[in-house]
């Protein structure tokens, strides 16, 4: 197939071929002499890809949606009894979710997905346990006190943390809950994976930010929260975020 349009420039599919590593000599020769097509190529290359969010989920989160501490939020503390209770509850909840897996509610495709991804190095999906089913949440969705939320993430290699920031701007840790408030090093996960920990929402009303952060270096909850409260992820980090509302 000729890469050239009838007007002599590269057609859009030829631009795609070049971006995909195609080695058409005709396209290469044209690019050497055509500044316009080089600009088109650069503009095309700059497009950012949001995460994949199929409404027809092929798999559902089998996360252990567990009840957190009394506050409803996980804090970076190791309490042996609470930990074992969490693990036991996790096993039961995981089994329950597996049983209800085929009844996952499909999100409305017309709604804004609410993802806010910077750099596309990490993406976050949040699910609410609804007893008989598990529902994916999107930005603007309403949640309630006592709701149990689980997470799925897709990411490159790095240091990962999922945290929340409530309406009072107070940060709390969603994952890893056993790491003493420090991010966990993760290998790349090109497919979405379910995190083994979940949270239970407390009574604080207002918007609730849930953020997955992936950074090149280890970081703490406080460092992440401070940066996010200034509107940006920490330097060297990518973020994926959803904001839900608790009336």
């Amino acid at each position: 197939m000729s890469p050239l349009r009838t007007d002599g420039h590269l057609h859009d599919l030829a631009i795609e071929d070049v971006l995909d590593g195609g080695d058409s000599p005709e396209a290469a020769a044209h690019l050497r002499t055509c500044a316009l097509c080089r600009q088109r190529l650069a503009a095309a290359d700059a497009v950012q890809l949001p995460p994949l969010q199929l409404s027809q989920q092929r798999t559902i989160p089998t996360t252990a949606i567990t009840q957190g501490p009394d506050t409803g939020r996980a804090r970076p503390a190791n309490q042996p009894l609470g930990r074992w209770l969490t693990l036991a509850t996790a096993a039961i909840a995981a089994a329950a979710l597996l049983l209800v897996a085929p009844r996952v509610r499909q999100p409305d495709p017309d709604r804004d997905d609410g993802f806010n991804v910077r750099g596309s190095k990490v993406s976050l999906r949040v699910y609410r346990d609804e007893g008989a089913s598990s529902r994916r949440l999107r930005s603007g969705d309403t949640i309630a006190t006592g709701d149990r939320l689980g997470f799925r993430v897709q990411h490159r290699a790095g240091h990962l943390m999922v945290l929340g920031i409530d309406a009072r701007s107070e940060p709390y840790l969603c994952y890893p809950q056993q790491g003493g408030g420090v991010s966990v090093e993760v290998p790349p996960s090109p497919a979405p994976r379910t995190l083994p920990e979940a949270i239970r929402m407390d009574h604080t009303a207002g918007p609730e930010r849930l953020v997955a952060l992936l950074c090149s270096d280890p970081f703490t909850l406080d460092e992440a929260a401070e940066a996010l409260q200034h509107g940006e992820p920490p330097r060297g980090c990518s973020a994926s975020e959803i904001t839900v509302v608790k009336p």
Partner: protein
Amino acid sequence: MEPVQAEAIDIEALYTQYGKLVLRRIRRFYPPQVAADVLQEVFERVLIRAPSFRGEGSPRAWLFGLTTRHCLARLRNERRRRHLLEELGEVPWSLPISESDTEARVFLQQLWHTLDPELVQIGIHHYVDGMTQAAIGDLMGVTGRTISNRLQQLQRLARQAAVPAGGDP
């Protein structure tokens, strides 16, 4: 890129490799705020349509064609049957649409939503993408001769539509 067989399609891998291509193509038809939704729709279509991919061509061309058809069908179904010319975006990686050609203008303004989807796709590749007949044939899996015949049909319809009742254009 090696062709992939339909049964071997991994949707997430396909998205990672070709998602930007699909998004860029969608942006030719939709503004950014809508394009993200359409992107997800296209990949849902991919799941459904994957068995129709014969693995003879490149996934790139298959996705490019599928995305074009999906966008055109969506525009048609949205009952926004205004001038397609108004719907087509000016995006920095594509070249401006030529309105100087009477046939192109008629096709994009009034004819497109009255034609069968295949002919509309051919018209888009011809008038908007500026592709040669051979390139369109390769993309759509038919001969250049077939494209030539269909374009003649399209040009005939455009000329007829451009002629006001009882007079010259």
